[in-house]
Every structure is written in structure tokens, then in C-alpha cells.
């Protein structure tokens, strides 16, 4: 059934086209965080539709809704014009919608054939019909023009080939719609070529593709339609022929919520934190560097932002400076003192702390109360002899709660009773309670709403004006242009550019390798 319909676009233009899958007024809230706010979205038959947007814009949430991973809070999904709803990815798959995640879901120890038929093995009288499975796998591989032997263990394949196996698996369940989340992020240039050939081939066979990528130029090569999301809203929609890179970037970044400006009205001190050619090797790939000879000086009272795409080496750099990762080479100096050989605890005592990127995994102890979390890094401050003092701990906790403005019923409250933003403030408050000289924050705004984001930046800015050195990383270009005195761009483990606070967003994005805008 062909469904012709007209849609009023946010951009005002009227477009008539053939949509195989349509999302109408889709909204998704997680508690008070609105990840998606009434989004309309069409996937066109035999076409590639690319979703553009910054981290947190709602791309992944939308993809998860379309593939049945999560259910929308409101709105409906139309498949061939019929309303459908899926409770699971299996439901979605039965209707012909498959998703290929960034992290491939293959079992590396099994062969290509066994992976393709995993969970739906072909049976015969004697058990599994291996011969038939092998034959079908070979056929699929030939269709994809990728002659991989069905019996090869997946772990022996290159990443690009593994991706092809994922695609083959999706095709083997007769998928008509293929959702690909950052499929090229781990591929070499030639592998990307192969993938694009496969995608064009799929298009010609009527398969519709939803594509997500941070590499805007790459995505522009392959896409037929572009949809831009920002803060959970679809901000723009257009066909490929009507748009260019600039159009995407403009619609992606938009006018950001005011996250503040660089703190001023005081004089910065001397260099407090000094990184000297920090190098961190990649443990899984010999000879490759996650962080490659990074040097950086941060003065007391200065705020430095490190911008970079995923995998640029930001997290590894910050973790190695904090002592979590072993650096192969390089020195970390705090107020002139070499602290490269010290343990994490000793670096904290010297005044260098890290607020990690993933607060659930690295920041919070969920089994302990808000107060115990806040005081965890400064136990020494309320220990007298062998015993801790409840009274003095209470003072530390109360001070931290008021310093970072945590909304909580008190120190006794459970961590899970706090909102994401307040949980993040607990992690920050915990580290600030140690009275550091320099604080490193890895994506401090990750997963918190814009109001909390502004509060966090205000905190950092206040800290800086009192002489704290602040280094924070981000993958949202809008955040670079907030409180940072200096913006450092990382790409492939190196610092590739450095800007002042007056730089244009487009320049930062160009430097990071995300997009080159003339």
C-alpha cells in the first residue's frame, strides 16, 4: 500500500512524498527530562534519511523508539500508513525494522553463519540444518558483494566486515527499514566506501535506511533527505538537493541557551596545572595512541574547554592526568611539582581532582547516601585519631550541599532520589569538598537538562574566579562558547587547534574534523 500524504514542515515548505514509516507527534520524557518533544519524522521508501543533531538532541531516543527498544510517552508510529506499536525489538523486526547499533551485537566467538541465524536456527530432523544455513549465508554475502566465508569466526573479521555481517543479519529477517547508528565511526576510509556501496545497493532493492552520523560531510554523500534535531525538537527538514553543510550546521547548533560567559574581573594567577607531552597508548591496538603528546598549561583562575568528537582522546587525556590511566610518557605538574608518579589519592591530596564522565559508573556509590557520597573524597578532613567525627562530617556535607546548591531532603537521602542534575552536582561537590587547586571535568553536562547545565557552569565559573583552574571537556560545540577562556580542540589524540572565547562555532567544528565549512 502506498501512502501519499502531505505534511506541514516546520520550515514551512510543503512536501509530498512516499513515506514507508512515519512518526507523528512522538514525545518521550524520562522523568522531568524531555528527550523528545512532539517530533514528526518520515522514512522514505528506498531512500536514505539522515538524522543530524548534537549529543543529547534526541537522535538516539528517536531511533530507539522507531526500533522498539523503548516506547514513546505519546504520539504514534505509522508503517505503510497503518498505526503500529512495538513492545520490543523483536516486534519491530517482525514488521521489517532492524537497528544496527554502534556497538555491534555479534558474538565474536561464533562464525558468520551462526551469528546470522542466532536465535532462529533452522532446524531439521537431526537438529540444526547447518548445510542450509551455510547456503543461505553464502547467498546473502554474495548479494552484498562481500565474499566472506560463512564459517569464519566473527572475531577474525575486520570491523567493516563485521558491520556487513550485521547488515546481512538484518536482511536475512527481511528488513525493509534499516536503522544505522554511527555506522562509519570505526571504519577506515576504504571500508566506508564499501559500506556506502552496500547502502546504495540496498536502496536500489527498495530498502529504506535511517542514518545517523556525526561526520556531516560523509553523511551528505549518502543521504537523500536530512532531518535536524535540536533539544528534542525537529528544527529542519529538507531534501539533499536543497541543502549544504552550512545549512546543517546552522540548524544543528541554533541559538543556544545562555550558559554564561567567561568569568572576568580578576587577574589570573601563574600556571597551576601543566601537562607536558602526555601520551597514552591504545592497549588493544599496538602502536596506536589514544592521546598523542598533548601539552597544555592552565593558569590559576582560568577555564579551559577541550572540544572533540567521540574518540578524540578527551576522556583518556583527563583520566591519565588524574592518575586513573597510566600514561606511557609525559609529565603532569601541579604548581610546578611533578605529580606524574603519584596515586589518585595522592593527587587528590595535592589538589588535582577529576569529575568523571559517567557518573553512574565512576562517580557515585549508589548504595551510600547523598552525604556519604559527598564526604567520600575528604574523609581525612573529619577523622580524628582513628575515628571519624559525625559532627564534623555533617559540617563537611552541609557545606558541600550549600556550596553546589544540591536540592535534597538532606544528607541522609538516597542517591537515587536525586535528579540527574543534582546527582552530577553531588559528584562535583564531592571533588570540590577536597579544596582542589585544579579540577578536571569530563563532559560535566552529559545527561542533565539545560537549567542544571547552566548551574554547573556557574559553579565552575565561580570556582575559577576564586583561583581554581578548571578544565572541562565537551562534545557540544555550544558549551565551548560559555565560560571558557580558551578552547582547545582535540582530534585523534592530538590538540589540533586552540581558540579564544570569540571563536565561531563553525570554526571549532571544522577544526575537530567534524565538518569543513568554507
Amino acid at each position, binding site marked *: 500500500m502506498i501512502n501519499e500524504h502531505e505534511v506541514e514542515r516546520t520550515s514551512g515548505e510543503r512536501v509530498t512524498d512516499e513515506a514507508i514509516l512515519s512518526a507523528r507527534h512522538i514525545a518521550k520524557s524520562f522523568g522531568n*527530562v524531555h528527550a523528545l518533544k512532539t517530533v514528526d519524522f518520515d522514512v522514505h521508501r528506498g531512500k536514505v534519511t539522515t538524522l543530524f543533531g548534537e549529543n543529547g538532541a534526541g537522535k538516539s531516543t528517536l531511533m530507539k523508539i522507531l526500533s522498539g527498544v523503548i516506547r514513546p510517552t505519546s504520539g504514534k508510529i505509522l508503517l505503510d500508513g497503518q498505526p503500529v506499536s512495538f513492545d520490543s525489538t523483536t516486534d519491530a523486526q517482525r514488521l521489517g525494522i532492524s537497528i544496527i547499533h554502534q556497538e555491534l551485537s555479534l558474538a565474536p566467538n561464533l562464525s558468520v553463519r551462526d551469528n546470522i541465524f542466532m536465535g532462529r536456527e533452522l532446524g531439521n530432523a537431526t537438529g540444526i540444518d547447518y548445510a542450509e544455513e551455510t547456503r543461505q549465508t553464502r547467498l546473502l554475502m554474495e548479494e552484498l558483494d562481500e565474499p566472506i566465508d560463512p564459517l569464519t569466526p566473527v572475531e577474525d573479521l575486520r570491523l567493516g566486515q563485521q558491520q556487513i555481517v550485521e547488515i546481512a543479519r538484518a536482511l536475512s529477517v527481511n528488513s525493509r527499514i534499516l536503522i544505522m547508528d554511527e555506522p562509519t565511526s570505526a571504519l577506515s576510509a576504504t571500508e566506508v566506501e564499501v559500506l556506502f556501496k552496500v547502502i546504495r545497493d540496498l536502496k536500489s532493492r527498495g530498502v529504506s535506511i535511517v542514518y545517523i552520523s556525526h561526520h556531516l560531510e560523509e553523511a551528505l554523500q549518502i543521504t537523500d533527505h536530512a532531518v535536524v534535531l535540536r533539544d528534542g525538537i525537529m528544527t529542519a527538514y529538507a531534501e539533499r538537493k536543497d541543502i549544504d553543510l552550512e545549512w546543517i550546521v546552522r540548524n544543528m547548533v541554533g541559538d543556544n541557551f545562555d550558559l554564561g560567559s567567561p568569568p572576568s574581573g580578576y587577574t589570573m594567577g601563574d600556571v597551576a596545572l601543566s601537562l607536558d607531552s602526555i601520551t597514552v597508548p591504545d592497549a588493544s591496538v599496538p602502536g596506536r595512541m589514544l592521546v598523542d603528546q598533548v601539552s597544555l598549561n592552565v593558569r590559576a583562575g582560568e577555564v579551559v574547554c577541550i572540544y572533540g568528537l*567521540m*574518540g578524540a582522546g578527551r576522556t583518556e587525556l583527563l583520566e591519565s592526568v588524574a592518575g*586513573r590511566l597510566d600514561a606511557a610518557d609525559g609529565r603532569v605538574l601541579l604548581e610546578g611539582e611533578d605529580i606524574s608518579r603519584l596515586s589518585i589519592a595522592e593527587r587528590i591530596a595535592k589538589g588535582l581532582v577529576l569529575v568523571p564522565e*559517567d557518573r553512574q559508573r565512576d562517580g557515585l556509590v549508589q548504595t*551510600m547516601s547523598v552525604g556519604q557520597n559527598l564526604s567520600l573524597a575528604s574523609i581525612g578532613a573529619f577523622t580524628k585519631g582513628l575515628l*571519624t567525627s559525625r559532627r564534623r562530617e555533617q559540617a563537611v556535607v552541609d557545606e558541600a550541599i550549600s556550596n553546589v546548591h544540591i536540592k535534597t*531532603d538532606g544528607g541522609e537521602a538516597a542517591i537515587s*532520589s536525586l535528579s540527574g542534575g*543534582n546527582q552530577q552536582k553531588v559528584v562535583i561537590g564531592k571533588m570540590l569538598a577536597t579544596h582542589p587547586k585544579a579540577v578536571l571535568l569530563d563532559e560535566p553536562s552529559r545527561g542533565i537538562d539545560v537549567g542544571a547545565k547552566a548551574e554547573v557552569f556557574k559553579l565552575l565559573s565561580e570556582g575559577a574566579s576564586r583561583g581554581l583552574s578548571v578544565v572541562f571537556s565537551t562534545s557540544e560545540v555550544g558549551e565551548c562558547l560559555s565560560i571558557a577562556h580558551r578552547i582547545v580542540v582535540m582530534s585523534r589524540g592530538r590538540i589540533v587547534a586552540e581558540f579564544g572565547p570569540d571563536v565561531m562555532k563553525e570554526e571549532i567544528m571544522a577544526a575537530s574534523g567534524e565538518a569543513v565549512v568554507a
Partner: protein
Amino acid sequence: MSDTSQAAANSQATNGANGRFDLIRLLLEGRAFFALIAIIVVFSILSPSYFTVNNFLTMSSHVSIFALLSLGMLLVILTGGIDLSVGSTMAFAGVFAGFLLQGVPLEIFGVVLYPPVWVIAILTGALGAFVGAINGVLVAYFKVPAFVATLGMLYVARGVALLMTDGLTYNNLGGSPEFGNTGFDWLGFNKLLGIPVGVLIMAVVAILCLLALSRTPFGRWVYSTGGNARAAELSGVPVKRVQVSVYVLSGICAAIAGLVLSSQLTSAGPTAGTTYELTAIAGVVIGGAALTGGRGTVRGTLLGAFVIGFLSDGLVIVGVSSYWQTVFTGAVIVLAVLLNGIQYRGRKQRGDSSQDDSSSSQQATPSAMEAPAVESAAGKPASQS
């Protein structure tokens, strides 16, 4: 977003839950205590000799062995580990003490050394610490899973104990006045203020554990290591040293238990305390600790040890066959874990339901944070650009 309104919603949600679930929650959280009361009431009705001071003292000195092992086990379990070697370590320690009591022949000098009992106690404790240190180093520094490392030690310690005596048992632990090493039976038989010494030792160890866990930095380190080792490490907690320490302390507790047990039995055999490690784990679990680490208390663990001890002694007193005792004990353990599950799941479910209810967003926050973060989380390992 309005954090204040959310906080208000939080407290409302919690209050509402409190009102409704008060009784069930009370029963759930005090389950070890109520179980103990129930056991005492039931057996007192079944047997007139159960509810007597003498019987309670006897049972308590049995319990003291379990409790000592359980307290050490609690420390290990709080860090998210497990110590399967405590039963063997206990036997090893007993045999070691028995060996020292027989006199240590120093052939070079042609003399036999008879260390006094207090020296023997210290040396035995050191042996327990040494065994625990091996466990701890294997787990913390060599990344051997705790289950495997201590399973290995279960065999090794038992094996060494058997080797030391050739499989035999030391029956003469009395020492002799001429060598000045008498008094070993004091631990198992004497009473202070009418209370068996073993029970007093248990009480002292329990108080030390309670203090350490609730009032020292070490205690906070133990809870945070078990709750989230990565976060603890980034907060400056010496996670590896904490891990080694808890196994050392567990080994010392096992050695003390070994001393008390062999004194009570007036014999030290290499096969003593077989499967006691499992009883110790059961005590900790019945006491409400989570095997995943981070949750558990000294009070609960003591109650757990008393539940197991009073139950099995009660079954003996009313004349239930020892085979049935095994069945009952097993059922109690499973029931305890089941209730643990209900307690922890209860918390989560309340959270899940509030996720759909947009007015109370209390527990929805963890998923809220995951959601926008997924893009970066999923992409990290793969992306090289």
C-alpha cells in the same frame, strides 16, 4: 526544570510509600530479628529445656564460632568479594595451635620449644592473617576472581592441615605445667561473669567490627569499594589495599574461631569446620547483606549467625534427625535470600511505577540520565575519528 517541585514530589512519594508499606517494611527489614524470636518461641514450646539460661549459654558458645566466621565474611562480602576458605583456614589454625602445643623440636639446637599459650594465640592469628593476605593479593593485584582464589585456598589450607598431622587429630591440648603451656582450654570452657569466654570473644570482635565499619575511614572505604569500586578509586579510596585488608581480617577471624573451636572440642583435627564457610555466608546473607557488596551490617550478621545456631541446636534438642536439620537450614537460607531479593526489588519497582506517573519522577532519574547519554556511551569504544 524545577528542582524544588521535584524534591517536593519526592518527599510526597516517599511519605505515601511509608504509610502504606510500614508494617511490611518493618517485617522485611527486621526479618532476621523476627525469625530469631520465632525460633526461640517455637522451640521453647516444643521443649521445656530450650528456654533455660544454661541452654542459651551453650547455644551461644556454638553460635560464637559461626559468628566469628560470619563477621570476617561480612567484611569481605561488603567489598563485593567472597571468602570460601574460612572453614579450611579455621581447621588449619586449630591444627597449627595443636602442633605448637605439642612442642616445636628445634633439631639444630637439640631442644624442644614449648611456647606459652598467649604466644600460640598470636602466632595462630598471624597464620590466619597470612592465609588471608594470599587471598587478598590474588584478588586485588592478580585479578583472580574472589570465588576462584578462595576456592583454591579452601583446598590448599585443608590440604596443608592434613599434611601437618598426617590426617590425624591432636587430642592433647592441655599442655603440661612443667613446660608452662597450660591454659588452652580456658578459651572453650571458662566463663567470665557467667558468660563463656568464646561468647565474650565474639562480642569483642563484633564491637571492633562495628566500630571499624561505622566510625573509621576504613569502614567507609569498605562500603564504597563494594558499592562502586571505580567511583571509590577516583575519590581517592585505596581500593586494592582495602581488598587485601578485608581478606586478612577474615583470615584472622577464622583463626580466632579455630582457636575457640579446638579449645571447646579439646581436640584439633584437620577436618574440623568442613562447609563452615557456607554457614558463614548464610549468616551474612540472612543478616540482610547483599552479595553484590556495599550493603550489610554487623547487627544483621550477628542475628543471622544466631538464627542458624539457635535453629540447628533447637532441632537437636527436640530430637529432629540431623538429616532434617540440613533440610531446614537450607530452606532458611533460601528464604532469607528470597526476602533480600524482595526487599531490594521492592525499592526498584516503586521507582519503575513512578516513571509512568509523570507527577512523581523520583526514581525515574537514573534512566533519564541514561537516555541522552546513550549516544556517547554507545559510541565510545568503537569510534576512532
